[in-house]
């Protein structure tokens, strides 16, 4: 096990094309520094977020996952971020049932104008996960010889 003090978590962040990805662009343009632990995936909308993506990230070695999107009421696709919110709430319960701390999954809204806010959310997320320590879910998985077909796991839960 990695010692906690040296532990650098890896976070996968899902962004939507219209708000939070642009917020990340804005953070860049404004040179707002945040920890390099986060790696972003662009989707068209937070509504595109298949819960499998989150499980895949954990299975591949991510220590935390962030879902970001437009603020409620500001979705480019009218209301699809509400669907992301619903999935997020259910997914957190599922993660707990799987033995993963709910704090490892975080939802944050950021408009295209909120580079500072997104950078702050990322910084806070990294610190939260740093405190939790490494997930090592992929190792656990290898030990108990379960398949990584996350879709199948999800269907069992559902």
């Amino acid at each position, binding site marked *: 096990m990695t010692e906690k003090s040296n532990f650098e978590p890896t976070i996968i962040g899902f962004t939507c094309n219209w708000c939070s990805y642009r917020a990340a*662009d804005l953070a860049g343009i404004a040179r707002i*520094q945040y920890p390099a632990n986060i790696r972003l995936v*662009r989707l068209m909308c937070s509504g595109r*977020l*298949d819960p499998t*993506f989150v499980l895949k990230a954990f299975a591949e070695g991510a220590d935390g996952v962030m879902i970001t999107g437009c603020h409620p009421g*500001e979705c*480019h696709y009218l209301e*699809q971020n509400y669907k992301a919110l619903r999935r997020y709430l259910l997914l957190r319960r599922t993660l707990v049932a799987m033995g993963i701390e709910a704090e490892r999954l975080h939802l944050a809204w950021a408009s295209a104008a909120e580079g500072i806010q997104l950078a702050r959310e990322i910084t806070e997320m990294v610190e939260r996960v740093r405190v939790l320590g490494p997930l090592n879910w992929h190792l656990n998985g290898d030990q108990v010889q379960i398949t990584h077909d996350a879709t199948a796991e999800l269907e069992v839960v*559902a």
Partner: protein
Amino acid sequence: MNTPKERIGVYICHCGTNISAVVDVEDVAQWAANKLEHKGVVIARDHKFMCSSLGQELVENDIKELGLTRVVVAACSPHLHEKTFRTACERAGLNPYLCELVSIREQVSWVHSDKVVATQKSKAIVSSGVERLIYHEALEQLSVPINPATLVVGGGIAGIQATLELADAGSPVYLVEREPSIGGHMAQFDKTFPTLDCSACILTPKMVDVGIHPNITLLTWAEVEQVNGYVGNFDVTVRQKARKVITDLCTGCGICIEKCPKNVLDDIYEVGMNYRKAVYTPFPQAVPNYPVMDLDNCIYFDTGKCKACEKFCPTNAIDFEQEDEMLKFQVGNIILATGFDLFDARKMSNYGYGRLENVFNSLEFERMCNASGPTEGEIVLRDGVTTPKAVGIIHCVGSRDKSHNAYCSSICCMQSLKFAHLVEERTGAHVYNFYIDIRTPGKGYDEFYNRIVEEGTHFVRGKVAEVTNAARQPDEKKKLIIQVEDTLIGKQRRIPVDMVILSAGLEPRHDAKEVAKLFGISCSADGWYIEKHPKLDPVATMTDGVYIAGCVQGPKDIPASIAQGAAAAARVQGKIQQGEMLMEPIRASIIEEQCSGCRICNDLCPYNAILYHDATMTSEINAALCQGCGTCIAACPAGAVIGTSYSNEQVLAQIEGLLMDVSV
């Protein structure tokens, strides 16, 4: 290990020193060439400026000489240069959608400073780009023909302007108005600030133009019921309410109105200040000039007797059997100009509107000033005869007030100054303006303010606490007393007046939310419709083909409403002239064999793009309606919904790439 099926080129940009100062770009390129070779990377290069013509030529030459089938460029945000590199690929004969731009500037070099960590993260990002790109498909942009007809909703000044601009440019326009006549709020006004020209004199010629223009189909007393389709091809259903008057026969002579025995309080056009008949036109200059029958108040529909209008109509144009009609037509674009509602001043009970009879709201006062209004332009108290000797005008009623609307309604200062001038000119009364700040930023507006100051209007800076009729002093008897802290002298004042005018703010239409849903656009928290960009795109919305103009976007004065109406029309006309529109091919589709017909996806689509076929018991996505959000793909339990550009395989591969161990 299998031989990779793709030949991938990776290009890392220095962006001058924007990237290379933090990221070791040579190392990233070398790493990609070695470690990603098994994924199909055949060449990895770095260049000072990938977006320069030299950088682009580098990509083009490699495509031709090395036979690249995929290209990854690691540089700035795809929102900046995705198109540049796609075009470069296209020039070299590669499908533009087989190029992936990943951001190592906005997401790495500009936000991180540790070189080792930044270089590692860049490698992970490049690896995710390569992994994802393998699953890319060659795509073609979708071309949509643009129907040259346009629907304009709302016949106020903004809608009228948009309609005329389009019609004059030769395009057919359907103008739909809920009331019996076009004209909107501007038709209710007497004078317009700051020039004080007569509102009707400048508005009615435009209304007449709309009425007779060969390119305009004017549908008044009508409402849009349903909108289906997408930019270029909207199917619109409009309910034409039964006028009970056959417009082909009616000459607009007005005899039916004259003979109708029933008086009805007109709470729309006359804001409850005057009566109209049960068969009526809202005002003499109405366009069109055909009357409508108010079924709730018509004696015949109530008791089955009367029919006075029918008896006296010289052309037999009255038809009691007429029913609502559903009109269906197609348009390419839609302009919403549905305007505003006045803030209901009864919500501020301390100002006594609705309780103290001589407290008026701004629209009531507009009607009173209007020569065709209830008092024929005489400014008098509610009794209809007494001329006020002192008048108080209260600004910001319902605006700039956290209990009601936080925003400034923008027109009330100028409107109040206009009222002050009209009161002074017509009655010689003392006028008091109670304001928080005077905001007169338009052309000629501040000059107008100075003119009113010089005319002798009193200005009291302070938010009025209360309007009351409870007299404390003998001189307050039978007066309305305005209790206010005059913040410029730091004292409480009680100012007795005969009449109070509340400059009520503007609010979104009470049904703005439902209308927004009907047209698939969104409202801000206040309820105004959201423009595509607050500065750079103020008349477009996030929904392609739907534009907004006038107060529907936020409070504004007449010149700004007209400018927006014309701007929206120009945008639409531009689209019409192009004839067709290219759309990004990011779309979802359903594999019919895998669809179980559970219909989970059907209700998730905000664009009603998913149709269910009873015959096959499967769902199908209309590619032209689909906007590509991907919610249905994520929801399908059978994995039967697939999407281009963001398929499950692409995203899962991208996640694998991002989490690749880059330390070795």
